[in-house]
């Protein structure tokens, strides 16, 4: 595996989210993989501090079922989003980190919902695991610029 393969994976991940290819997107996660959106940028755990989102496999499945069927008051009108990635950098993970590649990027997401576009900015990190079937996401962490204050609804994954 190479750094460019790791960068390609996060670009592909954004594309799958942008095109609402939910099942293909979810398949990028390892069985224990988690999607985490902390409340605070300095947060070190989802257990001792409230988060905006912490979805492991079943919670992702529940959220994706709602998105796919548009079953839910907040998502029954079209919700679409486009994620713009920049400053994408990949590096091998530290020894004994528990994963193989660390990728980071700045992400801007424009969310279209309720007939309006709202923009969210985040620093995003991926912990990628090399497996027999390719790189998989062990953790995706999205730190919003303004997670702590006066947010409106975030209806899809950044």
């Amino acid at each position, binding site marked *: 595996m190479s750094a460019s393969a790791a960068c390609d994976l996060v670009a592909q991940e954004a594309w799958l989210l942008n095109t609402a290819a939910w099942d293909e997107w979810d398949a990028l996660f390892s069985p224990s993989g988690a999607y985490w959106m902390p409340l605070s940028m300095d947060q070190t755990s989802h257990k001792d501090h409230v988060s905006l989102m*912490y979805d492991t*496999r*079943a919670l992702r499945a*529940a959220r994706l079922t709602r998105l796919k069927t548009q079953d839910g008051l907040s998502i029954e009108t079209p919700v679409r989003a486009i994620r713009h990635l920049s400053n994408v950098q990949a590096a091998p993970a530290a020894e004994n980190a528990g994963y193989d590649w660390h990728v980071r990027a700045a992400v801007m997401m424009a969310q279209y919902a309720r007939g309006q576009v709202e923009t969210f900015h985040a620093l995003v990190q991926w912990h990628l695991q090399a497996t027999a079937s390719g790189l998989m996401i062990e953790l995706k962490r999205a730190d919003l610029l303004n997670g702590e204050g006066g947010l*409106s609804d975030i209806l899809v994954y950044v």
Partner: protein
Amino acid sequence: MSLDVTALIQPGKVHRRVYTCADIFDAEQERLFRKSWLYVGHDSQIPEAGDVVTTRLANEPVIAIRQRGGDIQLFYNRCKHKGMQLLADGASGNVPALRCGYHGWIYGLDGALKTIPAATGYDDSALRPGCAEGALTPVGALETYRGFLFARLESGGPDFADWLAPMRASLDNMIDRAPAGRLSVAGGVLRYEHKCNWKFFFENTLDALHPMVVHNSSSKAAQRAGKTSDPVDSDEARALNMLAPFSASYSFFDDMGQRAGAFGHGELGGKSSIHAGYDVDPAYWEAMVAAYGEERTKEILGFGPNNSVLYPTIMFKAPVAMLRVIRPIAVDRTMIETWHFRMEGAPDTLLEQTLQYSTIVNSSAGIVGPDDHEAYIRLQAGLKSQGSDWVILSRYAGQVEKDGNGLQIAPGTSDFVFRNQYAAWADAMAQT
């Protein structure tokens, strides 16, 4: 403003203007919020002398400061010189004194004016360090109840003990669930802005007719996800267990019951709640029994209000040690904060449960909360319509009993709790 509330509040219905009229919102600030006991914070946020925390009460910026003698004082967050806020909204920390960042006026922790830079320019006035005119203005009244801080901006209004009385047992229950008998703020605070009138939030927290409709998709999706694969860990299993009861039946919520009392206070549940099925950590049970004995522990954990409202700004969830407070901004804008508490003496798993519930349910990126917000947005929009002037609150009219503790009880899906809120609202708004 001339305001005929009798025309807005009728038996079994309220006029749509109570949610949509900006003049009524402005009047609420003066007649309701400024004269009510409002939530300031918790004393665990400012344990040491010089610790400060800021918030807003009825849109007024205030500072709570721990004094050197240990008590807490609350001041308007405004320099007496030019009026600048001494601390930015949301600021907290420890200070030796309060220094205005504009012209450098300095105040002691007790609010006394200590220093005026270039003071000779005021020789012809009474302004000088220590003068009464220069001291920070204290907020009308501040009360602490087992760590919770409440304030009332105006001198008129209910006595604190009277005001708390209808919900005191429920607040005690939240605190008593800590083996050490005290709570502390922990795990951060969620803040999100809802594009709606503040009343929708309060009605929704006691509205037992909406979960099986609004939250059915979240609950059913979680139940399906739980059946298709084994949970990855016990945390995930707990999360799915939290979501499942949101689609419980009408009879489940009716049986849960509701109670209401003076000042608009009320609560859903008590006989049961959507939290009643949570697993009890054996280490927590042992800590509770060690602290209280088995009989008292069963009594504390057996009483589980689902949501309790201290009208008009506070909702708390005793079983999950959480408190939500509204900060109304405009007739159609409301800031909501969710505070979380560590039950002192309990294992960490209790705080983890509280924070997990809030992440899944209350967060603006949660799998439950945004659907409530969507309902509020559409309510706000729908009630601007001239298609009909009235909102119906007549469910189970007349089906109310006394509970022997000064409260009245009704089936869980009754509109009685809302009628009770509007009776208090009308009383307050009738004052000039």
